[in-house]
């Protein structure tokens, strides 16, 4: 809770002291969960639904900032990264999206759906053996989401999904951790640990956990139910005339 916490919103740490105090009437909803759990599929379904309900929606995704996206990709390819530089890069990417996408959209009254949030960095860094306290310090500039929906799965269910979809990649298999030379084995171990870590974070930060082993529709129904539960209780505004003219 930062010194500049806004009504209804709070910073995770010190926030961004140089930003002028502004009202953030929008809603920040984070979808968390490990690689291949179905976050983006679910978000693709949430967005049109919310828009039909009358809410203006803005998406933001991990490691997708215009400033850093390319650099991060190149750096990963170059095998030069350490846990420290890795973490700092992701924090920079996050800050860039926070200031250029998330905060302006919240200010304009949008619902921002974040595909992963700072908790992903917390989970990964812990699994990589980085200092959890330091990782959390880095994200002291973050805004605490209004709602965190955690897609939980077990490795057994995850594996066939990932293999069928895009396959196992080097990073998502945690090959950089040298858990083993076999991609499959490494994936199982790495994702197993990530899943554990997300569960631990879920209880620490009070995520709403959703069983993502079920069908896409069942998961979507749950997500919608939780979002609806949240929205009216906040005295939610409705964008009846569509998105504000000054948005993006």
């Amino acid at each position, binding site marked *: 809770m930062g010194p500049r916490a806004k009504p209804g919103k709070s910073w995770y*740490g*010190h*926030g*961004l*002291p*140089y930003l002028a105090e502004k009202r953030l009437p929008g809603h920040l909803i984070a979808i968390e969960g490990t690689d291949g759990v179905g976050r983006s599929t679910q978000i693709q379904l949430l967005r049109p639904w919310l828009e039909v309900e009358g809410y203006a929606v803005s998406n933001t995704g991990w490691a997708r900032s*215009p*400033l*850093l996206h*390319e*650099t991060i990709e*190149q*750096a990963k390819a*170059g*095998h*030069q*990264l*350490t*846990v*420290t*530089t*890795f973490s*700092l*890069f992701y*924090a*920079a990417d996050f*800050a*860039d999206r926070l*200031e*250029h996408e998330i905060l302006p959209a919240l200010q304009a009254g949008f619902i921002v759906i974040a595909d992963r949030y700072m908790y992903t960095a917390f989970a990964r860094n*812990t699994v*990589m*053996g*980085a*200092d*959890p*306290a*330091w990782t959390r*310090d*880095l994200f*002291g*500039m973050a805004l605490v989401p209004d709602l965190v929906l955690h897609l939980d799965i077990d490795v057994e269910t995850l594996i066939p999904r990932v293999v069928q979809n895009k396959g196992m990649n080097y990073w998502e298999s945690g090959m*950089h*951790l*040298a*858990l083993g030379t076999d991609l499959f084995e490494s994936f199982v*171990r790495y994702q197993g640990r990530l899943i554990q870590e997300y569960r631990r974070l879920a209880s620490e930060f009070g995520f709403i956990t959703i069983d993502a082993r079920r069908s896409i529709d069942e998961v979507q129904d749950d997500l919608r139910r939780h979002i609806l539960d949240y929205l009216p209780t906040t005295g939610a505004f409705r964008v009846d005339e569509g998105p504000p003219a000054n948005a993006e």
Partner: protein
Amino acid sequence: MFPGDKQTHVEIMAVVRKDGLEGQNAPSGNETSCSDSINADGQASQQLDSVEHARRSLLLSPHPYPGRLIAVEGIDGSGKSTQLLLLERWLRARGYPVRFTEWNSSRLVRQSLRRGKRKNLLTPTTFSLLHAVDFADRLTYNILPPLKAGMIVLSDRYAYTAFARDVARGVHPEWVRKVYSFALRPDLTLYFRVPITVSLERLLSGRAKLKYHEAGMDLGLSSDPTESFAMFQKRVLDIYDQLAVEFGLRTIDATGEILDQQRIVRRMVREVLRDYDRERARGNYGAAGQTW
């Protein structure tokens, strides 16, 4: 938080960079063996240790390595780089193994920073974090290995630059200290103190135009670069003065003659090297393959 030995596990694939180490100091077999222990399930206890570390920034206690780390700090135009160059010449002439590293020189963030600056995409926070990436990268590849190998590392600017500049740009002073809690404490940090008028004169005589970010133009303090420079650097200078007290930087009056300043610099460095010389005389530095 990641003193060298903990850092190794992601580095196993690391390519020794072209401006990295001379062959004998290159990360070798023992890096790989370290990585094997990382996946161990004893992770929990390891984490507790590092939590302690983070609370007590590494900047607050002396580093354990056999080499020596000497940094220079000061606002733009304070003459610190000139003084460091003269120091390097002297050390090399006396036969010391010296490595030099410079703020904002890592290839890792060059593109992002350049693009971000050109297109004005950077915010105080991303500016700060990208420089932290630069610093962390150089710490891993250019500072830690030579220090462990018993060399003298000369650093043109150090984490204090971030504490001064980034805070002058508006980030929280505590936050940026936490970000850099993995930075080792230099054995000696020389702070070249100079009034704004003098630094401005030096910069303007050297090159015709002030750089956009150097003048803090991104903060919109003034549309006139010279005026903006004066305002921004004044903030930075005030913070440096506080940092000198907080972190025990050795202040040198940088308005004096270059030669006089260098005399003071060498005297201070000689003090720091006294024990080092003793070890060196015994042949105890740079022992290959030794784990520190």
